[in-house]
């Protein structure tokens, strides 16, 4: 095992250590639009990224940036209507899952790509006990039943550090604390050893000390199983703690993507820089916090391409109509530029309502 991952590391320049393996998820130019009364909302508009075995990719962005819709698209769970995946490819272990029938997709969901949602109370069914809910996916995907299923459920609960799992599995969700509920959701997520686990803000509803416990648990599970994790968050603190690579999303597009240390040490896009700067620091007693001026643009009516930047007068109509271009600024470090101004003003793509 160790020698195997070493050879992979040698061929893969971006891997920082031996635990990261081959690409398990490759998303190319994904587009998910919502057709509404007010026009077409381009929630995800040409997003590309990949995820390797044992790696954690952070997708960071504010509410409405399209990060959750990206993850729902990968699961093919976008509510339709009004949502439609209108373009792109999603390769899961080499297979384009956007081409699969709904029936085939059912066998992929839960077994090869799984999800942990933000609120464990709504993610769990209040009228079934924990044993039923953790066992459901294994019953369907792996055909386990009876004592074998029970033993596996106990094993899963032990893996997520539920004390006395043989007793607690008879409990209903309301009998567990918030942290334990989220552990159960985690156990459901990893129960069929998926290749990709999508964690959509899994710790937002947890307290600080419980959050720390849960993040450690996710890391341990990853070390044990080699699952690739997509971590969706708006908090750069979680990114710093958990992620190997980061993709920063803004208004449906990725504006910067790269290795976590590159992003923190050398953010090129002004939005990334602003997000990192706006995290308040506990160790410092500052006079004033940095805040990003203005608001993210409305999704239906985007203002001029890069009007946030001082050198841009926002008068070029091409800035609105032309798509931004991605430029590789360093090894696997991509930054979005405004296409018409890149050479004249060097503007990064960053529309903003001010």
């Amino acid at each position, binding site marked *: 095992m160790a020698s195997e991952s070493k050879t992979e590391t040698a061929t893969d320049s971006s891997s920082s250590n031996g635990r990261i393996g081959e690409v398990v998820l490759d998303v190319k130019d994904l587009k998910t639009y919502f057709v509404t009364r007010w026009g077409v909302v381009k929630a995800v508009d040409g997003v590309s990224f990949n995820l390797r075995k044992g790696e954690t990719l952070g997708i960071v962005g504010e509410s409405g940036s399209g990060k959750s819709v990206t993850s729902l698209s990968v699961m093919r769970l976008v509510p339709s209507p009004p949502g439609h995946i209108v373009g792109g490819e999603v390769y899961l272990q080499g297979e384009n899952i956007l081409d699969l029938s709904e029936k085939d997709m059912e066998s992929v969901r839960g077994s090869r790509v799984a999800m942990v949602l933000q609120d464990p109370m709504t993610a769990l069914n209040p009228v079934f006990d924990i044993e039923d809910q953790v066992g459901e996916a294994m019953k369907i995907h792996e055909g386990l039943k009876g004592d074998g299923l029970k033993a596996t459920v106990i094993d899963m609960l032990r893996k997520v550090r539920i004390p006395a799992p043989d007793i607690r599995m008879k409990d209903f969700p309301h009998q567990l604390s918030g942290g334990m509920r989220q552990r159960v959701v985690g156990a459901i997520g990893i129960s069929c050893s998926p290749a990709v686990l999508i964690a959509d803000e899994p710790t937002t509803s947890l307290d600080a000390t419980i959050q720390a416990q849960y993040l450690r648990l996710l890391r341990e599970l990853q070390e044990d199983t080699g699952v690739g994790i997509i971590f969706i968050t*708006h908090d750069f603190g979680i990114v710093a703690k958990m992620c190997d690579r980061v993709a920063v999303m803004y208004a449906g597009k990725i504006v910067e993507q790269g290795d976590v240390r590159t992003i923190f040490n050398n953010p090129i896009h002004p939005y990334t820089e602003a997000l990192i700067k706006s995290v308040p620091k506990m160790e410092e007693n500052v006079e004033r916090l940095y805040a990003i001026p203005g608001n993210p643009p409305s999704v239906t009516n985007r203002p001029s391409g890069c009007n946030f930047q001082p050198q841009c007068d926002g008068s070029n109509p091409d800035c609105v109509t032309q798509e931004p271009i991605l430029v590789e600024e360093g090894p696997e470090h991509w930054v979005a530029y405004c296409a018409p101004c890149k050479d004249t003003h060097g503007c990064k793509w960053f529309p903003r309502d001010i």
Partner: protein
Amino acid sequence: MTSESGALLQIKNLKKHFHVGGGFLGGLGGQKTYLKAVDGIDLEIEPGTTYGLVGESGCGKSTTAKMVLMLEEPTEGEIYFEGQDALNMNREGRKNYKSSVQAVFQDPWASLNPRMRVENIIGEPLEINTTLSRKEIRTKVGDLLEEVGLQPYQAGLYPHEFSGGQRQRIGVARSLALNPKLIVLDEPVSALDVSIRAQIMNLLMDLQKEHGLTYLLIAHHLATVRYMCDKIGVMYLGHMVEEATTDELFDNPTHPYTQALIGAALPYHPDDEKEESILEGEVPSPIDPPSCCSYIPNCPETFAECNDNVVATKTVSPGHTVGHCAHCVDHYGCYWFPRVNPNIERNQ
């Protein structure tokens, strides 16, 4: 009854016990069961400063806020506002108190009525408590909106037409309408994106400077507290376990729970390899908590009195106090810190 202290708000031995079971038919033979949400806390807030109450869900910080806002009747204890006993005021005094003490709530989606226009949301307290004419109220609402960084024309809009950060600004404008002295901020930024939090925190700090406001800030995010507060109280299971000025608390955290909270904070950089201290186990149920220092390894737990969970306060340095177990503090120096942890073997 009055108090001589110069504090704007003074709380003495405040308690709130909720009756959660037993008592009716069961009461004939059994005992009433109480959830001790707040179990005897003291605090003082000086005018023009910010006091932060920190702690996890269920520690009683929001119940404390509700009692200060007179939305809950305390079971026991005293609240003094500007030296006056706030719990035993006449009708007029209560009315004054309620306009001097305002609140900003956590969830800007739930705290604004979706069927009211912004001008009515902000104008309602003015309509009820002042004799201003409609026209004057409209002007005042416009001024308030400008003060919180919105445009006067937005007064005609409904809450759903605003983003989360803007809604929280509307909540702040409403709390300012009656020129209050004290504003209770109940997790004012935790429902917002990290990038928007800074805007709202800066706004609150500007308003404090401008109007000389006093804040009682309820939060669980330590960096927020560090930025905004002058003094911090850490709550755990209805008790105050540590209280100090902001710098003292962060430089010299003494109670193991405070240390754990600081240790659980997220890093700012991937290379920021700070010592990871993760607290094991969970906060026990406040209905029937285990004996006080069952988490402390050196505690032999031989005192029957420990089960009463009586907390003694010890002074570390002037203005810095820490909660100890009242029965073992002299023998073992146990910090009061009941915890449910199946993984810890107790030393007998």
